């Protein structure tokens, strides 16, 4: 038996091209770039209140997308990503307030903390089986909260204020918040898209579909999961640092608020798991619902909870799943289509 050469130059094989981008993808990419420019330009078209609202929206998108990467692709269901948001938030406050580092530089330096903490956390938690992993992440977030509540140099339960922001004018702060919003979206949404289109993305999609089969094809499942866990910790950390810089205050219950997990899970499940489009749709729904029904407090959360149950029972793929079943027009296409060259078909 002779070996079959598989090089694309072989004349016996049909000439193909790999199509990655679609018309809908090009439109969406253009809109994405316009949205990023609009975010950067916010100080010139939006009031401070609007900028703060959009900043909150960007944080929801970022945290939800990080949860989506973990649960939707890597098979790591976490209910404790707030651990890394609080850790980065506190690191930023300590650097800027206690050590006098420029707060905007401190945001980036503070990302080292969630990255460093995520490594031992993953090494411990990956020993837990499926659903137990999720509760394990919750314990980690609780540990972080309790440690922060007991640490004197974090001002224990009373929390810290970011007084150094007084040195900047309102306009300067608006410019910084706008740039950070754009960066947050670029890093989490753009970064995820880039990652999913890469070699690693292909491996990640294989893991999503079947981890055992992926491993048998040579995908290093453990290493990829580890990478995603650390990356998600840094992404959530960036969202946390930006969010608490805008809040100007941090204390243990707000820094490690499980609300973030509730919201991320709601957004991703309702919008559509394992898709970037789903995160954007889910965030929009959550944000509008929060503005309209937030005043109803507890009963509003009862509805959110019941909706999450219903999605898990009857509509696992969420809204985007229903849309993409009917119309094949992805905003962030990541699949590869083989196209036969026309002259071969003739």
């Amino acid at each position: 038996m002779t070996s079959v050469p598989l090089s694309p130059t072989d004349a016996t094989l049909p000439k193909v091209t790999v199509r990655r981008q679609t018309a809908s993808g090009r439109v969406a990419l253009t809109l994405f770039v316009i949205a990023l420019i609009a975010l950067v330009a916010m100080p010139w078209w939006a009031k401070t209140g609007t900028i703060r609202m959009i900043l909150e929206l960007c944080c929801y998108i970022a945290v939800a997308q990080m949860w989506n990467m973990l649960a939707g692709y890597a098979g790591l269901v976490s209910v404790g990503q707030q651990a890394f948001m609080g850790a980065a938030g506190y690191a930023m406050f300590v650097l800027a307030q206690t050590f006098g580092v420029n707060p905007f530089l401190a945001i980036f330096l503070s990302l080292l903390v969630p990255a460093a903490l995520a490594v031992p956390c993953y090494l411990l938690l990956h020993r837990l089986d499926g659903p137990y992993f999720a509760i394990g992440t919750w314990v980690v977030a609780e540990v972080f909260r309790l440690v922060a509540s007991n640490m004197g140099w974090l001002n224990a339960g009373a929390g810290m204020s970011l007084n150094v922001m007084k040195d900047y004018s309102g306009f300067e702060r608006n410019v910084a918040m706008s740039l950070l919003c754009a960066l947050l979206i670029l890093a989490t949404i753009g970064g995820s898209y880039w990652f999913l289109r890469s070699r690693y993305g292909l491996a990640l999609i294989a893991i999503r579909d079947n981890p055992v089969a992926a491993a048998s094809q040579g995908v290093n499942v453990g290493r990829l999961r580890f990478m995603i866990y650390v990356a998600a910790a840094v992404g959530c950390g960036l969202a946390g640092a930006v969010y608490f810089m805008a809040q100007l205050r941090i204390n243990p219950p707000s820094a490690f608020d499980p609300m973030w997990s509730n919201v991320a899970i709601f957004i991703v499940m309702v919008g559509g798991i394992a898709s970037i489009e789903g995160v954007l749709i889910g965030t929009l729904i959550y944000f509008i619902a929060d503005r309209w029904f937030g005043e109803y407090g507890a009963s509003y959360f009862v509805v959110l909870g019941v909706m999450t149950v219903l999605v898990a029972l009857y509509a696992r793929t969420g809204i985007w799943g229903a849309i993409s079943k009917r119309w094949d027009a992805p905003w962030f296409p990541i699949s590869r289509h083989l196209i036969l060259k026309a002259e071969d078909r003739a």
Partner: protein
Amino acid sequence: MQWFDALVQGVLLGGMYAQYALGMALMFGVMRIVNVSHGDLVILLSLIGISLATSFGLGPFWVMAALVPLAVAMGWILQKVILNRVVGDDPLPSLIATFGLSLALQNLMLQIWSANSRSLPGGGIESRSVEVAGIYVGLLPVIVLVFATALTLCLDLMLKRTRFGRALRAAAADVEAAAMTGINPRAVYASATAIAVGILGFAAVFQSLRSTVAPADGGAQLVYAFEAVIIGGMGSVWGAFIGSMVLGISQAIGFRIDPGFGVLAGHLVFLLVLATRPQGLFGKS
């Protein structure tokens, strides 16, 4: 003496945690799912019990007699309506469904009972104490520990000796092979969840007698149950029982060192076990 006292208090506290952990160990062992609303169900049952006691003037014993059948029914309905649809190899649907349920239950309780802490009037039983070997221990925690031991023993005997227990273990080992031998897995699952939540009926009475309950407390109970199961080692009810004791002792000693350190000490022991013996103290590797 102070540390011996902490040890005794820890074992008694462990009796409380064992009542949460047994049901969780049973459900995970049989279906490989974790019910995130486990703790919220304890709180819901406690609040129902307190309302029963105040509106009808029932004593703790009668509250328990009413709550346990109610809890069994709740577990059975939970399995039929939600869990049977999400049980499977993928852990995501069951986690998300019970997570949503937990969110809904917590806020529903907040609406009905407000955020106030309440407790069940025990008619003096909660403040009585007995002297054992030179230290005073509360009568109620001793009763809790006796109940926890009895429940563990009954569950263990049921799993080992009865026809239903064999069906349960068969379904846990290989659900398809069990189905081929004539076991209906859905029925077995429904009974397992009914038992798991039924045990929470006992836990609810004791929890609301020995301390206060508020709608937001469920998460902590879930975490304690989970830690006890992992510390003890999966797959055995006695593992969950011993794990509860280890967790209780860790917290009691932690509280003696510093009141802010108690719960954290329990978490740290859990992480230590995870780092050094991930299969649990009594688990098989």
